[in-house]
């Protein structure tokens, strides 16, 4: 099978694995891009095509389809941030983020959703961003859609998604067939471990190869540690290699001087670099208002086989509850792919009870509800801070407003699963048990304590922390992604979102990065 990474490397791509460096290094470039995920990948292609000398930095390793193993025990440590063990400071929410060339786009589940209108309207109202009014984002959503082959998934949903669809249909709830960024997808279900067929149109197989073909350089296994700045400009960037387990190794120093610095490390790592660099923060918003779409989980057993590990992981979602009119927090309903490590670690219980549930693995169907945080005074997200090693930790408070959403989400998911034909439903909460009928589940869920560690919460979408705003008093970057105080620093990743989206963020990040880099190219070309 054709492997675009192996092919490119054999053709002489400029790639340096920083972990092999033994002496200090210096680089001079037009633009350095820190991070190779959705934001950095788009930036790399556009800036290279515009004729700039581009240097890409990535904390993770450069892997390709021939490296990807369809096993979680390989994928999580090698492709995910902190071995998929990233958590909030109080450890109440697990956070899945990619950390490899291509970032989260290499391991995400391919769901591609255009920026919801209510989110754009909220940004207009609160942050003066006129994306909705002037149609400023639509053309870039279209460009990204074309570049990454985003289209509606026309095959029959797998049974895990099919039950979400069936439940919605039975209850008269809204649902949508998901658009996916795939080309030649074989419907296998291993998107989360790296696509073995190069069908997923991640940054790894699209924009990054294009940038490397255009003469860009990629340094993998490198950690950006500090932006050195003076006055209103960044002077240089200091970085160090990482070891085989992706821990920083300060024995070799890498110094990079660039005309312009593009930060795209994601919504936790980007603020962390800026905090380590002690950049100006007059708005007080750096590393603040970090959103997670905290996700609530509900398992169900069906009489028939579900085989939730087979087929496109996500092909149906429901927005029935995502934008409620009563001001309470909304939530989007989706399903996750079911693989043994992910399920075993999230399902509640121990010993025989846990083993019994795992033995029914193929009958298991799981729904998740993604809470739309960031639109209410009691849902203002978390704060990125640095630990004693200089690494980020996200302090994310769980408020009563959020807990109200958690409880309603458990109810909606159980109702849906029973309506789809589940023989039993298990809200993933430490005080819940398996319920055989909807009225029983409804009564029990109403009594569950809504407290951290009792409810199992997870996140796969990290947003905010360097938010955009038209007013420097309320944002870290301006609507063009330009840092408000440092003139040669642009940020284009999930960190610039002023709220959560109520939708999976990759397409919004592609479009914003495209828009920002189109402006940046004009600015740098003057």
């Amino acid at each position: 099978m054709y492997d675009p990474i192996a092919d490119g490397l054999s053709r002489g791509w400029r790639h340096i694995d920083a972990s092999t460096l033994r002496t200090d290094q210096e680089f001079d470039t037009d633009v350095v891009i820190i991070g190779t995920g959705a934001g950095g990948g788009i930036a790399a292609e556009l800036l290279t095509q515009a004729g700039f000398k581009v240097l890409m930095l990535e904390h993770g390793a450069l892997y390709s389809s021939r490296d990807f193993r369809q096993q979680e025990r390989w994928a999580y440590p090698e492709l995910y941030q902190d071995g998929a063990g990233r958590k909030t400071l109080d450890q109440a929410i697990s956070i899945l983020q990619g950390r490899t060339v291509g970032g989260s786009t290499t391991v995400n589940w391919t769901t591609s959703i255009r920026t919801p209108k209510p989110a754009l309207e909220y940004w207009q109202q609160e942050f003066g961003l006129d994306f909705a009014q002037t149609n400023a984002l639509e053309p870039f959503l279209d460009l990204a859609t074309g570049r990454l082959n985003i289209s509606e998934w026309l095959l029959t949903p797998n049974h895990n998604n099919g039950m979400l669809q069936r439940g919605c249909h039975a209850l008269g709830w809204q649902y949508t067939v998901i658009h996916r960024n795939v080309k030649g997808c074989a419907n296998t279900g291993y998107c989360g471990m790296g696509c073995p067929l190069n069908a997923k149109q991640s940054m790894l197989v699209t924009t990054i190869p294009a940038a490397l073909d255009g003469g860009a350089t990629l340094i993998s296994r490198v950690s950006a540690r500090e932006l050195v700045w003076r006055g209103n400009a960044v002077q240089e960037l200091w970085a160090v290699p990482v070891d085989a387990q992706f821990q920083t190794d300060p024995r070799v120093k890498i110094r990079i001087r660039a005309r312009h610095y593009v930060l795209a490390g994601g919504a936790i790592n980007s603020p962390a670099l800026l905090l380590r660099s002690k950049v100006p923060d007059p708005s007080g918003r750096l590393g603040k208002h970090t959103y997670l779409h905290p996700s609530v989980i509900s398992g169900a057993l069906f009489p028939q086989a579900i085989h939730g590990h087979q087929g496109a992981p996500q092909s149906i979602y429901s927005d029935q509850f995502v934008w409620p009119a009563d001001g309470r927090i909304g939530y989007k309903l989706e399903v996750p792919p079911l693989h043994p490590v992910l399920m075993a670690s999230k399902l509640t219980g121990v010993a025989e009870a846990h083993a019994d549930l795992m033995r029914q693995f193929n009958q298991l169907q799981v729904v998740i509800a993604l809470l739309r945080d960031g639109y209410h005074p009691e849902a203002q997200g978390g704060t990125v801070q640095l630990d004693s090693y200089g690494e980020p930790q996200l302090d994310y408070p769980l408020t009563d407003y959020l807990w109200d959403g958690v409880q309603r989400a458990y109810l909606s998911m159980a109702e849906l699963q029973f309506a789809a034909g589940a023989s039993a439903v298990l809200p993933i909460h430490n005080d819940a048990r398996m319920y055989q009928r909807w009225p029983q589940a409804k009564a029990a869920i109403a009594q569950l304590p809504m407290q951290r560690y009792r409810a199992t919460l997870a996140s796969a979408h990290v947003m905010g922390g360097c938010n955009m705003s038209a007013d420097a008093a309320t944002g870290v970057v301006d609507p063009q992604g330009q840092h408000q105080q440092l003139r040669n620093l642009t940020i284009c990743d999930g960190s610039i979102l002023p709220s959560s989206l109520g939708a999976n963020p990759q397409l919004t990040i592609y479009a914003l990065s495209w828009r920002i880099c189109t402006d940046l190219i004009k600015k740098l070309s003057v």
Partner: protein
Amino acid sequence: MMQRRQFIMLGLGAGVSLSLGVTLYPLLQSTDKSRADAATLVLDALLPALLHGALPSSATEQQAALRRSRDAVLQFLPYLPRSQQAQLQQLFLLLQQRLGQLALTGHWLSLNELPISARLQLLSSWRDSYLATLQQAYHGLRELLYGAYYGQPLHWPALKYQPLEFNPYV
């Protein structure tokens, strides 16, 4: 009336300096070997409890499955952030020391001398503790240990999980 274990845990909680509710002393005094020994001891004690009901019935296969899972945890730990590694090492060291053990388990007996039912009771008491640090310990260890066991293809027949394999990995 306050039970003895609650009293001990309250004392432990009052002296917190790390997020696991303990002092740095054992970690600072420890060597690489003592940390590895502590981790091995604790994992060898907790894995049979958590996996009770999931392990193969043959004694030989059971031992092999436990060894595989313990080794998988030990191989995975260096990928965690250094702050999380420090917390876990601290917990492992305390659980193998007599005083720390008493504080965390309420027993003078070493962890691997307790019957499986007592080890499960211990985990339940952490899960339901009013101390956030013990709840974190419960959830953290649970995720780590179940992840290690169910990551092994040799443990999948019970699940009837039949993954595709484009690139073999053994």
